[in-house]
């Protein structure tokens, strides 16, 4: 599949008084045209920072910020683009949906004003044409009485409706890549399914690629073509969705999958991975997962494993398989 986005050795570090936080540490991945890539992981493992780095939302301050790597989008390195070039790209070629629909819309502007804005800026539509298109978009995301919604303010709509509006705004200019940062986390389950359904429909209709960030494996199973598992700023495992769900290699991925409740299966206690995500300031030269891992070996404590291919369609960063390879 043709590459749309290629992230190569991206690092985003923050320098604080207590030390350097490697929020995203040397990660590489690609998103193909029309592909849905899910990034999963616990809170605080760098998923959102990855997305923000791609969108250029991390402001460099001193030595903090995106410290290395390239982000190629359609052949251009986003990190090298000027402010204006980046601005014309944002909202038209790449767009983003946030987790909290309630706070992502300006409270003093009507839905119509906010929805027509990108259309007028990027598509250069006049007021009337933009309004017409906006009404169509609202109808497309499944909200009835679109004309009336145009004149409403965000506080007059429910969270689910607002997230639909956010999606309408995000897809208004026909982006090639949609970054969705936990788009359904703040919504209840029925709305969640509708939103995901809608995203998938738009993807199929317009050949849009989606980079979906989530901690919900149910969402992953439903949406993803390709899955990336992140832990403490690094990719620990990645692979095509069927392979990864069928045969997770990394103990962390296994743990994540095990800690998901299964319908119809009575469990006394839901599995949870012991321990917590390590303090990003106290990371040492080791596998970052070693103190929570049930298969921890000596090497895990002193050296971090590289991300290596395991089989055709999967990669993992774990010494367990490294050894297997050596012995084989």
């Amino acid at each position, binding site marked *: 599949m043709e590459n749309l986005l290629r992230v190569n050795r991206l690092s985003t570090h923050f320098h604080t008084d207590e030390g350097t936080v490697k929020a995203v540490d040397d990660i590489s991945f690609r998103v193909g045209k029309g592909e849905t890539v899910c990034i999963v992981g616990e809170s605080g493992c760098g998923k959102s920072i990855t997305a923000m780095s791609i*969108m250029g*939302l991390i402001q460099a301050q001193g030595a903090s910020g995106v410290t290395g790597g390239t982000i190629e989008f359609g052949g251009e390195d986003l990190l090298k683009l000027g402010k204006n070039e*980046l*601005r*014309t*790209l*944002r*909202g*038209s070629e790449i*767009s*983003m949906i*946030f987790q*909290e629909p309630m*706070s*992502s*819309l*300006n*409270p*003093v*502007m*009507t839905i119509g*004003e906010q929805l027509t*804005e*990108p259309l007028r*800026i*990027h598509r250069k539509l006049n007021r009337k044409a933009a309004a017409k298109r906006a009404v169509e978009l609202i109808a497309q995301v*499944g*909200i*009835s*009485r679109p004309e*009336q*919604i145009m*004149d*409403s*303010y965000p506080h*007059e*709509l*429910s969270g*689910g*409706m607002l997230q*639909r509006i*956010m999606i309408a*705004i995000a897809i208004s200019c026909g982006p090639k890549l949609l970054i969705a940062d936990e788009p359904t986390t703040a919504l209840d389950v029925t709305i969640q399914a*509708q939103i995901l*359904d*809608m995203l998938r*429909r738009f993807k199929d209709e317009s050949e849009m690629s989606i980079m979906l960030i989530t901690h919900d494996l149910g969402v992953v199973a439903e949406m993803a073509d390709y899955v990336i598992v992140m832990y403490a700023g690094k990719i620990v495992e990645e692979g095509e969705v069927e392979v990864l769900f069928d045969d997770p290699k990394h103990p962390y991925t296994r743990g994540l999958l095990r800690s998901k409740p299964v319908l119809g299966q009575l469990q006394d206690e839901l599995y949870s991975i012991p321990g917590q995500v390590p303090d990003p300031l106290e990371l040492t030269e080791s596998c970052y997962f070693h103190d929570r891992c049930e298969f921890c070996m000596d090497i895990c404590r002193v050296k971090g494993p590289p991300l290596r291919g395991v089989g055709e369609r999967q990669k993992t960063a774990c010494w367990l398989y490294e050894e297997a390879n050596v012995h084989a």
Partner: protein
Amino acid sequence: MSSVSGAAAPGRGAKTAVKSSMWRQSVRLLLKNKLAIAGLVIVVLMFLACFIGPMFSPYADNKTNMRIMNRAPNLQHWLGTDKLGRDVLTRVLLAGRISLTVGLASMVLSVTLGTLLGALSGFFRGVVDQVIMRVADLLLTIPSLPLLFIFGALLSDWKVPPENRMYIVMLILSLVNWPSMARMIRGQMLSLREREFMQATTVLGLNNKRKLFHHLLPNLIPLIIVIATLNIGGAILSESVLSFFGLGVTAPTPTWGNMIDAANNLIDFQERPWLWMPPGLSIFITVIAINIFGDGLRDVLDPKQKR
């Protein structure tokens, strides 16, 4: 895809009500506050009296008349006459024109200046912020009264013609008032610009101008309205102070401040209260009324600042 029926969307007829709901609600709340409305009524009456009143006065030409100097209130001159035989009531109203105009105009100037500079400084931060805020700090470190005196003294020194002094006084007052406004706006701006919807505008590729004027400033309008209202009272008071000390608008143009100044001697004070009571009361009532109204407005528009 099922369609969501508008949970919060009222019927079609209510369309315009939806659009202006915030303002309507504010007006309704304000109407409930009797004190604030009383303030507003007084201010409006004062404006009407000052701007229309003199048209019906036979003494509006401000001519001196030596035969009727210092008369106590009587049927021809309801508030008496001053030492040059001019009708005090007419002069109080004419003075009100100047005082209210100066108050209003300098408010508009200082609010515009303060909002613009505060917004720029909070939005761009960095060097812009440093420059603007250090200038503001400089102006704020000097207490405003001495600062006004310095400017007023310069004004007298440069021999500005009396008919132009009014405009210069407006400028001076706004120059002294903008820093506090700018600080307030900057603070709000700093917090607003970090909100998630502003990140969303970046992601949508909006430029700075649009972000600033279409997204951020509208969020501050309630605050600006409140401060602006309260500022008028302050500006009227400052203008009166300046004129009282002979540093603001000077005779023959009457203002409330210089009318009191003209009566600032023992004889007038003890024997002729009609000379200083009317302008004094006018200042008092106008400023109090504006402040009461402003307080009411704040309760409605900016509940966070409620004391």
